[in-house]
């Protein structure tokens, strides 16, 4: 009999991913699929905002004040050019939402990245060095955890405002926000990585490396990082939801993105001021988009956590 099987090739990384437990779990879970779809749509909308928007709402020359406070297009008095209506400065709400979504996502991602970098570094340092350094880091982390995130974010924000001269506030707002939110959320990353580091540090290959005069750090990272990738991913996803919420809250409170560069939270704040005059669309539509975003991210994070949890497999 002739052997007609194919030559033995190792499947590509993509094929391995497709066949992995994670992918199978994903295909089975409708919450995972729906939330990922929603997130993709929102990301795409934010990414292509300049292409999808009908106007640039920050460009004053594009605004016609006569068109201000128009209701959504399908309601009497609306204008099909402004699909979701306009605000009191005649900015098209649909375009504002797209740009605002973009800002919210930028701040969200950047602050998560900052928190991850800070947290992972501190975790590695603390776990590797141990002793007083580790003790100090963990003590700070404990104190930080006992304070609600929004309070710390507000504090950092306030300090930044105090330090910067007032005319720079608006420009620096986005950086201040990223810094404030990033600095409050690093603790979970630090703890996870620290735990892994301390486990690896005991292992023989690290001791062997140290005897050889090689710093164990590089080799350790090679072993630690794959282990912590899963949990870090889960933390990052859940953190993204929290970061977006925190940014929205700060903007809503008036200490986040300014009205000249509004994020979704800022839009909601602006809309809130006009709630009683019956202009409900400026509040409702950005809120719907914000809630959809956070809900989708939370659902995905929940699913990811359960899927990657070794105890539930």
């Amino acid at each position: 009999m002739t052997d007609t099987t194919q030559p033995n090739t190792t499947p590509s990384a993509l094929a391995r991913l497709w066949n992995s437990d994670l992918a199978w779990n994903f295909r089975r879970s409708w919450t995972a699929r729906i939330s990922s779809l929603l997130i993709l749509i929102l990301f795409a909308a934010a990414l292509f905002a300049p292409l999808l928007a009908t106007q640039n709402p920050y460009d004053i020359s594009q605004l016609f004040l006569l068109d201000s406070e128009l209701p959504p297009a399908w309601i009497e008095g609306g204008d099909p050019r402004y699909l979701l209506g306009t605000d009191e400065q005649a900015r098209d709400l649909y375009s504002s939402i797209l740009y605002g979504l973009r800002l919210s996502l930028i701040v969200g991602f950047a602050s998560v990245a900052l928190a991850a970098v800070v947290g992972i570094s501190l975790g590695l340092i603390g776990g590797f060095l141990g002793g007083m350094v580790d003790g100090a880091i963990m003590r700070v982390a404990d104190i930080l955890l006992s304070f609600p995130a929004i309070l710390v974010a507000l504090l950092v924000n306030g300090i930044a405002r105090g330090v910067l001269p007032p005319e720079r506030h608006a420009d620096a707002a986005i950086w201040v926000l990223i810094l404030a939110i990033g600095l409050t959320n690093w603790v979970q990353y630090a703890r996870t990585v620290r735990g892994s580091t301390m486990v690896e540090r005991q292992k023989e290959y690290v001791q062997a490396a140290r005897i050889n005069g090689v710093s164990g750090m590089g080799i350790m990272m090679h072993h630690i990082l794959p282990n912590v990738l899963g949990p870090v991913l889960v933390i990052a996803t859940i953190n993204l939801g929290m970061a977006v919420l925190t940014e929205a809250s700060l903007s809503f409170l008036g200490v986040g993105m300014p009205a000249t560069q509004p994020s979704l939270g800022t839009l909601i704040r602006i809309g809130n001021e006009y709630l009683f005059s019956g202009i409900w669309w400026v509040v409702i539509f950005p809120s719907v988009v914000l809630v959809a975003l956070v809900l989708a991210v939370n659902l995905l994070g929940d699913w990811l956590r359960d899927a990657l949890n070794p105890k539930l497999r």
Partner: protein
Amino acid sequence: MLGFLIRRIIQSVFVMLAVALIAFMMFRFMGDPVNSMVAETATTEERDAVRERLGLDQPLYVQYGRFVARAATGDFGLSWRNARPVSTLLAERFPATAELVLVAAGLSLVLGIPLGILTALRPHSVSTQALQLMSLVGISLPTFVTGILLILIFSVWLGWLPSFGRGTVVDVGWWSTGFLTLSGLKALILPSVMLCLFQLTLIMRLVRSEMMEVLRTDYIKFAKARGLTNRSIHFHHALKNTLIPVITIFGLQLGGLIAFAIITETVFQWPGMGALFIQAVSFGDVPVMAAYLVLVSLIFVIINTTVDLLYAVLDPRLRVEGARAAH
């Protein structure tokens, strides 16, 4: 037990000192207080005189020491925004926040615990699934959106409840309360509902997961094997074990309520400490920010220590130092 208490108190003092340090640094390095206290045309001599009067020429640690001493008596100087003593401002606004937080905390417990028990005892019923879904949405909704929705429905469209302010308040000594008037009570409803929602979903989920875990234990199995009634098993044997961690976590979350009150007070224009803090952040009013920080930290530290003590009181395993083993 006493040793434990003393250790915790010492820890708390350290935390407070650290917080005071941050507050002090804020004062010292943000803005120049001298500039805001003298006229633009002041000479250097006059500035130096002011500097000396304010003690700004002393070494840092002396200034820090003085700061701590003054802070301990509640003196944080004058607000940069309206030149009133910070302690007075905080004292005026404290009752508003306190009442709001207390009502919200109470609501979250009174509703959250029974709902959590319900979802634990009937895990597959329709009401449980509905509640689970609502709790997931509840965690994802930004609190201010909930507040705005509440205002939209109950104030703008239905017109039942007020959307801003505290209503009529009555002064009882130093405290001003909204509990004693109908308008005060009505004004409390929407903000406290908004504030309690996040806490409520948290408690519900916590009670549910704790109780389900307790119901799987061997001692519950043994209680069933002894033929004890369902009522006793659920509400006597299981509940006590469930509530111990719940109460402690609730205590730790109280801090979150105080923080979220900031948003609630902004949405409902509630004249509390949180609203004051936001105005201070917006303006860069350092004395108010620093004082709020120190006050809130103090509250957190007190709550945390109380919770730890409470845990030791509630769980008999922690009460006796070491089990007295006898054969």
